[in-house]
């Protein structure tokens, strides 16, 4: 069996591999240097690459992302860290109005090869302003590629693609997965942006999941196997490019679709996937499309409350049971 590593370590590894390959890759962010990141996801980078490649910034999210953009326009491949994805709101002008529109507005004159990495999602008890899963925020804006891996190997493989991409990529590292373990990525491991993975094959129903909801879906599938319900789990891995074909071809076999999203139901990414299937896959469906997403409330602090709000294995199992017998 391959060696195991943590998702957290995979982040640093993935960045380091690219920094070794390409000297134009430069990191910036708050506390990422000597402190190695508040989530320890930039471990070893400062030691290996030094202050010319790993830059500590002030608490200035607009300056961080804005500077990354300016650098990307002029020959650097910046990898900017926004400590918590909730803080995307503090630099959203760059995410929504500047970065994704730059190439288009200039008629293709300017290319923006940058990565914005961020710790995303809940599960660590950080409360309403530090726990959100906000892939859907950036999903509203055309012009950004969006990766959200669920395993250490995918972290490395997608990081390689993200950093090598000539397009801007928003890279979500899930806080709740940081301590999880998985196979070490082999050398030169590259996962193309926009390819979903069938992480568990099944026949009765398709679950489409992303990042933290992949293990949730897998646990549910495992439990449901004991009830003779065969669930296929598709890990989208990216929202843009969106591997809609993978979803549609799974639904073509299972005829049933459940989306499991960490973001709130209203405006969630799963709604777009659902709408594609409700259009292009309408004739494939034998049952309603359902979404297990977060309740439409801010994230509460207490575990007892949080469990009511976010998708859990129980909720997924329950939803599958009801759909399977529809």
């Amino acid at each position, binding site marked *: 069996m391959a060696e195991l590593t943590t998702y957290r370590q995979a982040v640093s590894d993935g960045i380091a591999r690219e920094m070794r390959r390409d000297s134009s890759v430069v990191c910036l962010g*708050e*506390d990422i*240097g*000597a*402190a190695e990141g*508040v989530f320890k996801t930039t471990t070893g980078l400062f030691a290996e690459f030094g202050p010319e490649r790993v830059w*500590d*910034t*002030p*608490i*200035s*999210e*607009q300056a961080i992302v804005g500077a990354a953009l300016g650098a990307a326009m002029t020959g650097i491949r910046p990898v900017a860290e926004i400590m918590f994805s*909730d*803080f995307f*709101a*503090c630099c959203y002008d760059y995410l929504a109005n500047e970065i994704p529109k730059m190439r288009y507005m200039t008629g293709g004159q300017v290319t923006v090869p940058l990565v914005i990495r961020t710790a995303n999602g809940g599960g*660590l*008890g*950080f*409360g*309403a*302003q*530090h726990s959100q899963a906000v892939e859907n925020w950036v999903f509203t804006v055309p012009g950004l590629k969006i990766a959200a891996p669920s395993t250490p190997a995918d972290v490395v493989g997608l990081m390689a693609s993200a950093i090598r991409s000539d397009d801007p990529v928003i890279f979500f590292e899930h806080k709740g997965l940081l301590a999880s373990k998985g196979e070490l990525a082999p050398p030169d491991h590259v996962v193309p942006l926009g390819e979903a993975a069938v992480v568990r094959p099944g026949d009765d129903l398709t679950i489409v999941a992303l990042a933290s909801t992949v293990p949730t879906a897998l646990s549910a599938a495992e439990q449901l196997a004991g009830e003779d319900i065969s669930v296929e789990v598709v890990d989208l891995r990216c929202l843009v490019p969106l591997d809609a074909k993978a979803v549609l071809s799974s639904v073509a076999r299972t005829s049933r679709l459940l989306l499991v999203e960490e973001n709130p139901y*209203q405006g969630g990414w799963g709604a777009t996937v659902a709408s594609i299937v409700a259009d292009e896959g309408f004739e494939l469906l034998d049952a309603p499309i359902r979404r297990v997403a977060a*309740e*439409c*409330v*801010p994230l*509460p*602090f*207490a*575990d*007892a*409350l*949080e*469990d*009511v*709000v976010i998708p859990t294995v129980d909720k997924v199992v329950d939803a599958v049971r009801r759909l399977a017998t529809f």
Partner: protein
Amino acid sequence: MTVSEDTSIRVDAGRLLEWYEEMALIRRTEKAAYDLFMSGEVKGTTHLAAGHEAVAVGASAALREDDYVFATYRGHHHAIARGATPAECLAELMSKATGLCKAKGGSMHLTKADKGMLGSYAIVGSHLPIAAGAAWSAKLRGTDQVAVAFFGDGATNIGAFHEAMNLAAVWKLPVLFVCENNLYMEYTPIASVTSVPNPAADRAAANGLPAEIIDGNDVVIVHDTVKVAVERARAGDGPTVIEALTYRQYGHSRADPAKYRPADEVERWMQRDPLRIARDRLTSLGVGEADIDAADARVAQVVDAAVQEARDAPFPDPAQALTDVWADGGAVWRN
């Protein structure tokens, strides 16, 4: 440190003893919070303000009951200084139904609205415009309330700080911007990412505002400085920036051992513990050690009881998760 100790300050011994006790209450509550975090009874994260007590207590003593206070995720001291009990604070940290915010907020979001403590904000700098807005409201309503925003040195490099100062200056709002400069952001020294030596005070003139740099560990100096600024604000003379030099006695958050801080720096600041400074002042005012120790003992009792009370409190009813979004108490977003 550029702080010159002003020994000419006069203060009533009885009042100072009250302040001492309040600071001790905060200190002991923070210690309890730390222990509860380490034992797993507080989950998530917590940012302790031990070391910053003089800022909260000194400033609060200069405010009226109906004034407004806005704090950061490192805000337990401000909640307590404004009258939140250790029991309700700890209950919030421990995810209990009796918590200040019914366990919906957590350590970073202590709020005690009926005491004018209008929240702890976890997005750095976000509350500075909000505090300006509360001050604007006071002006609009023709009250002479004042709003005070407390923030860290790290917050001085974020855009919202600049926007808030300019708006407050142009509209001459009764708001104080009080920076608790503890030399560090999370783990990075503020000096390494800031273009001026005094991150808050050196930005005041850019918005035509007066600034004071003070010893933030001396509750008397904090009180006296804030008092003057509050009077200016109430008189309609606009905002003041106060940069209070202080130091945190724990790490940034959670179990951070703060290894990035030089030992001699820590040592120097521990010497300047706000409780010790207050104790010295009390002694020199003739207050006996026994009286001070009695305050400590009272505090210990209160906090121990608070821990017990918070421990005994129930977790919230899960149904509470779907309340309190809207003013009608509910959370219904569709029919």
